[in-house]
């Protein structure tokens, strides 16, 4: 099995927690959940949202933090920002214990909560920035310089005087990212920064994040469902599921495990028994439609040609693997290894 996969206790990428900018050492978060089981009866049980996670992120790194819904991603981010207090383990960001010195840490971090805007809905965009200026006590010169640069990079010039409620989703996301960076944070947490954005906006946001990372050396930790975010931005990926670290390493390693197959979806003229070809295998049949998995490294063309020659083909499409698929493949690999 690939060397990046861990047994869920310690991340290989963490490699001993020393000198990182963000450091987690066996961090846990346990929630008490009460479930109604009868008219008045409630059952209490504990849920380990984060189960002994350790990793270390160096200053200036750009890391993707991925996993299925409910895996513990946002719980981790909330502990890193001081919103939640860990139930166990040791956690430091820039040498600060976030939950104990939350307000002090707030000056040094920037947070963008995916679909939740922190901008002032009824007021022009610039008003929200003026509030940040004063709330974070950003020196005037620094504020003006940062604002100018962010407006230029994120193309916000025409939007500054527009009330936030009139902005499109993509414009608002850009506005939110700028708001999170005005005070020169050393680390930026992004929760689903490209969700719901069109292709052009996505590209803009990614391009900008890359620039911020290289230009200012800002450490970036982002959660996402979009594999392309990771591919284009992060050299390192951490995969979490059921509160445990499943993988911590370079993206290429993840490809080896999970991204090894693409899917060919074919529509036949009628229902037929599963297609038989050497280079692919049928994973699903639904009426006249069949799904075939084939190695990501192989070209689809010869496969399509062979199927078209032997079967009554109506339509077809090729699907790239998404994160969920990569992760589920990863499990399959783990189970068999």
């Amino acid at each position, binding site marked *: 099995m690939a060397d990046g996969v861990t047994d869920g206790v310690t991340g290989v990428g963490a490699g001993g927690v020393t000198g990182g900018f963000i450091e987690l050492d066996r961090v846990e978060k346990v929630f008490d959940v009460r479930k109604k089981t009868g008219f008045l009866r409630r059952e209490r049980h504990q849920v380990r949202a984060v189960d002994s996670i350790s990793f270390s992120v160096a200053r200036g790194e750009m890391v993707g933090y991925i996993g299925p819904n409910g895996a513990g991603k946002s719980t981790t981010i909330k502990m890193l920002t001081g*919103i939640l207090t860990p139930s166990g383990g040791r956690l430091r960001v820039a040498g600060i214990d976030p939950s104990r010195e939350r*307000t002090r840490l707030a*000056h040094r*971090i920037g947070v963008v909560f995916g679909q939740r805007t922190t901008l002032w809905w*009824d007021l022009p965009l610039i008003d929200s920035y003026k*509030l940040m200026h004063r709330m974070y006590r950003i020196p005037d010169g620094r504020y003006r310089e940062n604002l100018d640069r962010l407006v230029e990079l994120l193309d916000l010039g025409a939007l500054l005087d527009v009330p936030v409620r009139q902005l499109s989703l993509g414009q608002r996301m850009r506005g939110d990212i700028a708001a999170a960076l005005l*005070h020169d944070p050393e680390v930026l947490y992004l929760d689903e920064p490209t969700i719901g954005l069109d292709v052009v906006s996505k590209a803009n946001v990614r391009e900008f994040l890359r620039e911020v990372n290289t230009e200012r050396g800002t450490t970036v930790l982002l959660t996402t469902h979009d594999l392309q975010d990771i591919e284009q931005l992060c050299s390192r990926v951490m995969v979490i599921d059921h509160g445990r670290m499943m993988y911590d390493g370079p993206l290429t390693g993840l490809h080896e495990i999970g991204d090894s197959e693409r899917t060919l979806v074919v529509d036949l003229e009628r229902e037929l028994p599963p297609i038989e070809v050497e280079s692919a295998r049928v994973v699903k049949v639904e009426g006249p439609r069949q799904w075939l998995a084939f190695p990501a490294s192989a070209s689809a063309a010869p496969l399509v040609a062979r199927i078209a020659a032997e079967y009554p083909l109506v339509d077809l499409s090729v699907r790239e693997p998404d994160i969920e698929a990569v992760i589920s493949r990863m499990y399959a690999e783990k189970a068999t290894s």
Partner: protein
Amino acid sequence: MGETTKVGSTAGSRVTDGLRAYLLIAGMWIRAGMTYRTSFVVTVFGNLLLSGLDFVGILLMFSQVDSLGGWTLPEVAFLYGLSVTAFGITDLLLGSSEVLGTRIRDGSFDTLLVRPVPVLAQVAADQFPLRRFGRVIQGALVLGWALFAVDVDWTAPKALLVPVMLVSGAVIFGAIFVAGAAFQFLAQDAAQVQNAFTYGGTTLLQYPPTLFGKDLVRGVTFVLPLAFVNWLPASYVLGRPYPLDLPTWVTYLSPLAAGVCCALAGVLWRTGLRSYRSTGS
């Protein structure tokens, strides 16, 4: 920026930080509210009318009787003016803390926790409702009239008690609002319970203490010290006997009661916030 010392900011600077943040955020909400100008004017007027209804109710009662529990209309108006003005100030400054429950439920409370200013200041200023200024105006008008109409030989201590009551009263109500906000960490849908103590409290204090059962009066004197908002000091100013046998110096304890309430509310708030940060709700 953010170059606070390792020890963290002192209690004093936390208070100034909080006040500063409060003013910044309240200012934003006022401006946001002004974008709907007609609506704003309508609601200020509506609030003035709405809070005046209580007093109309009292006037209606006095159209049928000359005294209530032995108190005349100007005397009841004195109680009313003190209660409503003190409450109005607090309702204006902290009254929207009831939206905290909604913020916890929809998750937007988290965005307040990543800001470098005290959370309590942000919660207090949230949705700052300038329209509620109507209630302060209305309460002050009634109080102004009552001050002239009551039959009192004004001495220096008696005159001094009026502003003391207003300030202590506002602080006592403020402590209840904060405690209510803290309670919402436990039960997000229970903002109504807070109303029972805040709106219920100010309504209770509009009427003479002689109307109510001894147990209730004891409860709001010794347990939840609402009586220090106006009942006790006002009874002294007006020379009316208080239902409970208390020494005169108790009259002057309103600021102390307010201080104790504040301290308790602070502890409750911190406990509530801590429970949120360890359960995530």
